[in-house]
């Protein structure tokens, strides 16, 4: 009986199956819910599977700068270096070393790698001499930046691109510390991890109640 029903017309959603079973009619009018989603405007309207589309930046950074602000694919071949200094050759943007900065609430860890991703050097607030709660401050982050900058200039890596991860007090001051030590920062990127809902998502810890 049901096979006969379904062979006549293919229902598009659960509602059409229910309607067809209720009326038991073979007129094959297919009701399509085309106007709105049933959950629109309600409290339970939550997008459980947000799309992972890489959209262009919402603000036109080029306008903000008055020139080219955002990095595009064509910029990877751009040569960066001192035009005056003929001994040191200009490097492509994609061959520059990367400085990763992980800025958490209690600490900032800074780490340098070359263009492929192999780690060269690493510092954190503890290495510079701060302890416990003082590691999660702006002054400690600046000290880390200076320390890292000194080490980089010793290894002759003057041009560098920066990747920042996380929200914390050391986000800006570590970059400023690098600049104080005399390093030329070419770009700043942000790599804060935004967890998306999917099947294997690890549920974070419960809320702190103090």
């Amino acid at each position, binding site marked *: 009986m049901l096979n006969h029903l379904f062979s006549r017309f293919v229902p598009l959603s659960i509602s059409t199956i229910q309607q067809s079973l209720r009326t038991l009619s073979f007129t094959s009018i297919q009701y399509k819910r085309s106007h709105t989603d049933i959950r629109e405007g309600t*409290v339970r309207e939550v997008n459980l599977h947000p799309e992972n589309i890489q959209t262009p930046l919402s603000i036109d*950074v080029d306008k*903000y700068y008055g020139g080219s602000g955002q990095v595009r694919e064509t910029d*990877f071949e751009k040569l960066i270096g001192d035009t005056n200094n003929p001994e040191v050759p200009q490097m492509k943007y*994609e061959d520059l070393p990367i400085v990763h900065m992980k800025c958490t609430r209690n600490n900032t860890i800074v780490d340098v790698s070359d263009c492929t991703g192999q780690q060269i050097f690493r510092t954190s607030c503890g290495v510079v001499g701060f302890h416990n709660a003082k590691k999660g401050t702006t002054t400690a982050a600046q000290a880390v930046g200076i320390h890292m900058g000194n080490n980089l200039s010793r290894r002759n890596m003057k041009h560098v691109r920066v990747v920042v991860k996380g929200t914390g007090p050391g986000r800006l001051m570590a970059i*400023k510390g690098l600049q104080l030590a005399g390093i030329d*920062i070419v770009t*700043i990127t942000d790599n804060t991890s935004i967890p998306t809902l999917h099947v294997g998502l690890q549920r974070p810890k419960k809320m702190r109640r103090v």
Partner: protein
Amino acid sequence: MWNVHSRFLARTVWVRNGEVDLAYRALNRVLNNEEVFKTARLWERYEKPFRKRGRLCYEKAHEIYNNEMERKIKFLMRKNRANPWPWN
């Protein structure tokens, strides 16, 4: 090759003339617009469903209030016009 460098396509900003402050501020502006920090803060600790429901209700109500207030202010600002009887 592109896999390694794809993270330098989105959320990156050039630094011009050594102005790191300006670049950082531009980047922050974009990220705030896209609510990146807000979501990162929400997912730090688990938000139970009853709290989530309350938060969504509050946000919707807040938005409605703000929109209506903007409309009201726009309407009232129409009073700021030239006096049609300056000789009075």
